[in-house]
């Protein structure tokens, strides 16, 4: 039963493709992507500029080992044989089956305000509930947004938040990005139900480079959830997405993501929010899959009184290196940040927290608190913590605390003396450890997240 569940995510689908680029990234490919998408000149120029920067930039010398990632053996652009649909029935059968198996349409019916589904490089389905569309909320495929909202996109797309020269994989992303989500919430509108996107990377040696751009205008509120998965191949795949969030004055964005890429995937993702005056940014990140992850969601608190809360959990099992963390950059006065990071390593997995809190000279009366908790379940696994605090302000308070260790024998003994097996006892204690994250997710996602962790931990004991 459990094995069957696991195959939900890891089984590849046989699909027809409309376009499948050769391995490697070239200027011709960048032009071809832009041509197929019928993009305006400014976007093509941006792509080409980023591509030139990418060629010159070195692979990061810090963090996990990326030597197994051969960038010339990745397919950067794969289009499924499907047009974007707004009715679930119109999605081609073979793709629909995949998302049906993952439970996407069911979630839309029950609890979501809108859903997007991306398959390899193209978005195949997008829909937003009528009541939100009527209030001016835009929930679109990113490619469509370039066409329909050129001014908004040109102003925000990889400019102030994640500039194209940020790092090597942001440059690569800017050159070959495809699909993703665009959300605009007008001033004062509070979207009560979460909007959701699901990204599925099916092609072998594939690369997925979806771009998520969310703009929450003054006083608005929106909650967005992303789920990700890919089938399991023996060859490497690459996910280098980019998430840019603009939190307007007094606005709130809650961004949740559960990333469950398969073990052959390098997940080198960039997520960043720009938070204006009195804005609130909430990050909830769960990293369960992928062989190597480098992911540090960041909040740049540029407006007075801006707030950021970040809650993350990473589970590293056999063959996995989860290098995750969070960043808070305090630029304006009276800004605050809270970062809570949890990790579990088992079966030889490596879980690292890498974080940064930076307080600028102008950021008077800043308060920041970071807590890291790490559980190490066996002697072959590793847990590392690399917190950086940099401050130039005399009138701020920053604190960091971290604890690492294994589950206490007395805790396991207590649970076992009440009739639980050792494995069940550990599962229960781990369940309590991750509860803080699952509590922040909508019910369906929380159930899914707990199930994923149980699947991951299966056989971890004894």
């Amino acid at each position: 039963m459990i094995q069957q569940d696991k195959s939900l995510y890891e089984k590849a689908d046989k699909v027809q493709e409309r376009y499948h680029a050769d391995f490697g990234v070239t200027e011709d490919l960048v032009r071809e992507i832009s041509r197929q998408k019928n993009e305006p000149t400014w976007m093509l120029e941006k792509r080409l500029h980023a591509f030139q920067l990418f060629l010159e930039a070195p692979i990061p010398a810090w963090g996990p080992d990326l030597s197994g990632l051969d960038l010339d053996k990745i397919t950067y652009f794969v289009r499924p044989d499907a047009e974007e649909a707004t009715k679930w029935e119109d999605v081609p059968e073979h793709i629909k089956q995949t998302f049906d198996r993952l439970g996407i349409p069911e979630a839309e019916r029950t609890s979501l305000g809108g859903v997007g589904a991306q398959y390899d490089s193209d978005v195949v389905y997008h829909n937003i509930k009528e009541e939100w569309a009527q209030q001016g909320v835009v929930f679109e495929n990113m490619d469509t947004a370039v066409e329909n909202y050129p001014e908004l996109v040109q102003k925000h797309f990889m400019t102030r938040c994640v500039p194209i020269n940020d790092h090597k994989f942001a440059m690569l992303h800017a050159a070959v990005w495809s699909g993703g989500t665009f959300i605009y919430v007008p001033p004062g509108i509070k979207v009560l139900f979460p909007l959701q996107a699901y990204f599925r990377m099916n092609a072998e040696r594939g690369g997925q480079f979806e771009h998520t751009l969310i703009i929450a205008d003054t006083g608005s509120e929106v909650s967005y959830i992303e789920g990700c998965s890919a089938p399991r191949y023996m060859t490497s795949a690459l996910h280098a997405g980019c998430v840019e969030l603009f939190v307007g004055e007094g606005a709130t964005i809650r961004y949740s993501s559960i990333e469950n890429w398969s073990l052959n995937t390098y997940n080198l993702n960039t997520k960043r929010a720009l938070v204006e005056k009195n804005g609130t940014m909430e990050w909830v990140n769960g990293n369960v899959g992928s062989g190597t992850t480098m992911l540090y969601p960041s909040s740049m608190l540029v407006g007075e009184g801006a707030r950021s809360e970040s809650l993350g959990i990473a589970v590293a099992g056999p063959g996995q290196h989860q290098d995750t963390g969070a960043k808070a950059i305090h630029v304006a006065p009276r800004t605050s940040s809270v970062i809570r990071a949890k990790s579990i390593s088992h079966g030889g997995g490596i879980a690292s927290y890498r974080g940064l809190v930076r307080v600028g000279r102008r950021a008077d009366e800043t308060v920041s608190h970071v807590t890291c908790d790490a559980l190490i379940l066996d002697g072959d696994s590793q847990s590392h913590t690399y917190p950086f605090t940099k401050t130039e302000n005399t009138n701020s308070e920053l604190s960091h605390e971290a604890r690492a260790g294994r589950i206490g024998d007395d805790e396991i003994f207590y649970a076992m003396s009440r009739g639980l097996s050792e494995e069940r006892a550990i599962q229960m204690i781990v369940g309590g450890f991750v509860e803080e994250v699952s509590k922040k997710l909508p019910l369906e996602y929380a159930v899914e997240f707990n199930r994923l962790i149980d699947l991951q931990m299966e056989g971890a004991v004894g």
Partner: protein
Amino acid sequence: MNTQEIYVPEGATKTLRLPSDFTSGDSYAILAHVLKGASLIIIETLQTILPCSIRLTVRLEGEGASVVDRSRYQGLGNAVLDIERVIVHIAPGTTSRVDARGIMHDASRALWRGRVLVEQGAKRAQAFLRHDAILTGKEAYMDAAPFLEIFTDDAICKHGASVRRIQPAELFYMKSRGVLEEEARNMLLEGFLAGTSR
């Protein structure tokens, strides 16, 4: 800068006062080997206006070896402090406790790196690493990073870091008892350096 190597023999306790026990200058590098059942106590008091580089590595090589490291430093003027602590737990039952506090005045800058490594053989290791700082200078800068790298499940490791400020309430309390503001600030800073982290 030459690295000086010291050994703390089996069962011995050695106290190292820095920098006075070691050098008259502000830059030094020490590699200490602590053998079975031995204890190393480090007491560092540093106040400087000069650029300085301090590298201190302690290897807990014998079962039950321990190190207590209490460091207090202050940067004045345009001082640039580059401080590194590396504690390596190699043998079982080893314990380490690093408690560092620094105050950066004027336009002084500090780069503080603490790194505790618990190797796979260091079963039942206990590590505590803490760094606290106060910035008083308008142009002062502090970059602190206490790293933990754990390669075993049988260890208890904690670390913490903070940057604090002199609390207005504390200052008010002192002033209301007739202490002049500047004097009150100095007393509070003195208290910060004298305190011990738990």
